[in-house]
């Protein structure tokens, strides 16, 4: 008896010693944000995770900033202008300091771009800026960016393109820069990172905008949304993201928290497989669009947190044409079209989705399709394997797929049209599902000019074309819904960013 009591207590002590747990009290000037996870690295150029971007924007500045009205605003660049179709000039802000005291200048800007463009570094953001051919230092406060062809999305891409300190990164190396010593010019500087637990930042006194209102900023990783909600109710965290519609009423009236919600660049759609029956027929695709009662789903299932759209191009994006009107809900018309298409007795199809948060919505869509005769079997997948199933293996997930597209926070029609409908091999979803005559050419035309009025005309044409051809069931744009502690004043942004420089102490 004594023997194994001793044995187990020794084992216990070994384990205790191996995992020290310091006590830590939360100070009042601390802002705590819950994220579902942390990115693999703090290096802003070496990942493409939303959770990492949300952190990085608070530690690093880019050349441009987007204000709460979603307009471009000077940041590290004070002004910019195109010198030609393929060359832009940026004037840099003077006297900006990195967290380690070094001065930021044109060489750092050049280095930052070259770092991502260096294919050996395998930056996942390479594709975003690969149109940039060269960054030329004109003088310490001026750079020229030269693209290999007209690149209308350049300014959009520069809103999240963090500038890193050349000398520092070269000294410490990429590995340390991403884990223990990230240095930027942003409002907060790095303190510590406990993986899967928390990332602690501290206000940077010498930031060119002035000090942020909160001295400490903590990003906690809490995978479970139910746990996040419990945390905000008890004051353990101050901001949580992606609050679902069913929780909203409860948090709206909570003594500790409030809700802030805004439409974002995330559009919901059901991509239709145009390669095979029955969605190879235009009439069937149109019938599917008439069959879904979007307004009812938005009101009854999404708590009103959605806005119906005519196509996948959203009102917030450049190129949106308000003249293109949504398909109304018209089940009778849907049945007629289906009969005209040669399916008077209906047809059986399968739809796929990995969009777990919206499972009930997915099932409602399938049910509505079934009611008009497009008898739809819903198949729900785990997100990981689904990616493989939908986007590889020759896109075998016929006949349709319900999902959403977030535009990478790029406010331009191209950011949704190219991935969803362009059929080139490098494309995303479109290469498997969409087959609209002439659409590839129009999308290419839209992305290869910096003449904005001309681009606008092209996108109007595209929206009319896809509304008619209906390569997807066009649904709605999503809202981003934050729950925020009453001790903090902040509002959700249309680009889903958490720009916490704007956060102020509450009443």
């Amino acid at each position: 008896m004594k023997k194994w009591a001793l044995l187990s207590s020794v084992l216990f002590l070994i384990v205790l010693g191996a995992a020290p747990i310091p006590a830590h009290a939360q100070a009042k000037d601390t802002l705590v944000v819950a994220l579902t996870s942390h990115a693999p690295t703090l290096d802003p150029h070496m990942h493409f995770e939303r959770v990492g971007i949300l952190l990085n924007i608070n530690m690093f500045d880019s050349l441009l900033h987007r204000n709460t009205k979603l307009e471009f605003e000077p940041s590290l660049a004070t002004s910019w202008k195109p010198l030609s179709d393929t060359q832009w000039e940026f004037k840099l802000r003077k006297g900006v300091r990195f967290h380690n005291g070094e001065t930021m200048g044109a060489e750092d800007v050049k280095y930052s771009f070259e770092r991502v463009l260096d294919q050996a570094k395998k930056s996942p953001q390479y594709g975003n800026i690969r149109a940039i051919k060269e960054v030329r230092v004109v003088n310490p406060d001026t750079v020229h960016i030269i693209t290999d062809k007209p690149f209308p999305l350049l300014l959009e891409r520069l809103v999240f393109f963090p500038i890193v300190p050349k000398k520092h990164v070269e000294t410490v190396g990429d590995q340390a820069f991403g884990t223990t010593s990230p240095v930027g010019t942003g409002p907060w500087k790095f303190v510590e990172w406990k993986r899967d637990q928390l990332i602690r930042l501290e206000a940077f006194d010498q930031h060119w905008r002035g000090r942020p209102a909160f001295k400490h900023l903590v990003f906690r990783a809490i995978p479970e949304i139910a746990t996040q909600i419990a945390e905000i109710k008890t004051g353990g965290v101050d901001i949580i993201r992606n609050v679902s519609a069913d929780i909203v009423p409860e948090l709206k009236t909570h003594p500790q928290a409030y809700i802030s919600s805004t439409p974002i660049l995330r559009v919901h759609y059901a991509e239709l497989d145009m390669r095979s029956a029955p969605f190879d027929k235009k009439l069937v695709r149109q019938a599917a669009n008439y069959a879904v009662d979007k307004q009812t789903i938005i009101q009854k299932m999404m708590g009103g947190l959605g806005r119906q759209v005519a196509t996948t191009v959203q009102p917030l994006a450049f190129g949106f044409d308000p003249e293109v009107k949504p398909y109304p809900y018209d089940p009778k018309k849907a049945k007629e079209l289906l009969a005209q298409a040669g399916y008077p007795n209906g047809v059986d199809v399968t739809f796929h989705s990995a969009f777990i948060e919206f499972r009930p919505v997915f099932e409602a869509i399938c049910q509505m399709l079934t009611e008009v005769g497009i008898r739809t079997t819903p198949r729900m997948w785990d997100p990981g394997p689904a990616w493989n199933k939908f986007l590889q293996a020759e896109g075998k997930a016929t006949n349709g797929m319900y999902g959403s597209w977030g535009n990478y926070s790029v406010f331009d029609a191209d950011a949704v049209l190219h991935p969803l409908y362009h059929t080139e091999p490098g494309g995303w979803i479109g290469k498997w599902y969409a087959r609209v005559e002439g659409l590839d050419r129009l999308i290419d035309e839209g992305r290869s000019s910096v003449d904005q009025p001309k681009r606008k005309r092209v996108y109007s044409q595209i929206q009319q074309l896809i509304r008619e051809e209906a390569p997807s069931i066009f649904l709605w744009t999503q809202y981003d819904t934050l729950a925020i502690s009453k001790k903090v004043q902040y509002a959700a942004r249309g680009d889903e960013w958490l720009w916490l420089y704007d956060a102020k102490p509450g009443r």
Partner: protein
Amino acid sequence: MLTLVARRIVRLLVVLAGVSLVTFAILHVSGDPVSLMMPEAPEADRAVLRQSMGFNDALAVQFGRFVWNLARGDFGHSFFHREPALPLVLARMPTTLLLTVLAMGLSLLIAVPIGILSAVRRNSVFDHGATFVVFLGTSMPVFWTGIMLILLFAVQLRVLPVSGWESWAALVLPALTLATFSTPLLLRIVRSSMLDVINLDYVRTARAKGVSEWLVICHHALVNAALPLVTVAGLQFGLALSGAIITETVFAVPGVGRLIVGAIRQLDFPIVQAGVFVVALIVVLVNFAVDMLYIYLNPQIRVR
């Protein structure tokens, strides 16, 4: 006794071979590993990678290579973290072990006294009550228990933090959650093995000699009843470890379980393989240790 130990060691090795086979299979039953790694690359690039990673070799050759790498602790690089997988897993192991050991300790603290009392007062209200609670505990999923405990102790009563790993208080709820998972079986084992010994001759003799009831139960009866408890506690340790995977996600505990869950979502196979193998290894070793302890504690086995 030596043959007994030898036999256990052979069994240990067979189980480990099985575990490595299953771990190896994880990658290959999940689809084409190369298209998982490079979802957007042209087929030509994938072919190059397939060749360079040796996926074109016969499965047996690949398995041999896997075992050889495994023996050197090389599970490859995490796709997501871009770092070697094994150190990532090992760095999180102490947290998970601490949680599991705490939960097992808590389980024993609850199960032993209640189990004894249930046996001593067989068929009393207390006994029936304990049986009911056991039944309840067995039927609740860990996930649900966790969230209910959060709602009660953190949101309503506000006595404990909701989640995290920054203070000792934060350990209580996850440990309790895990304990509700492993306690019921232990409690039943204590109760039934106590019942087995409590009416044996030597206990009756002790009583007849005038030894106090308390001493009879704790010294004479419990020591003998503890043998099955050791075995079952070993098995329960493995179960608790698997329960920790979900518990860690609910309570945002930065352990191996959460790492594995995240890796499954991201199809990060090196992490899944390293994680599964390390956890399985620990379970196997714990059970081996329990077997040894059992042999050591039980004179009958030693004589035979």
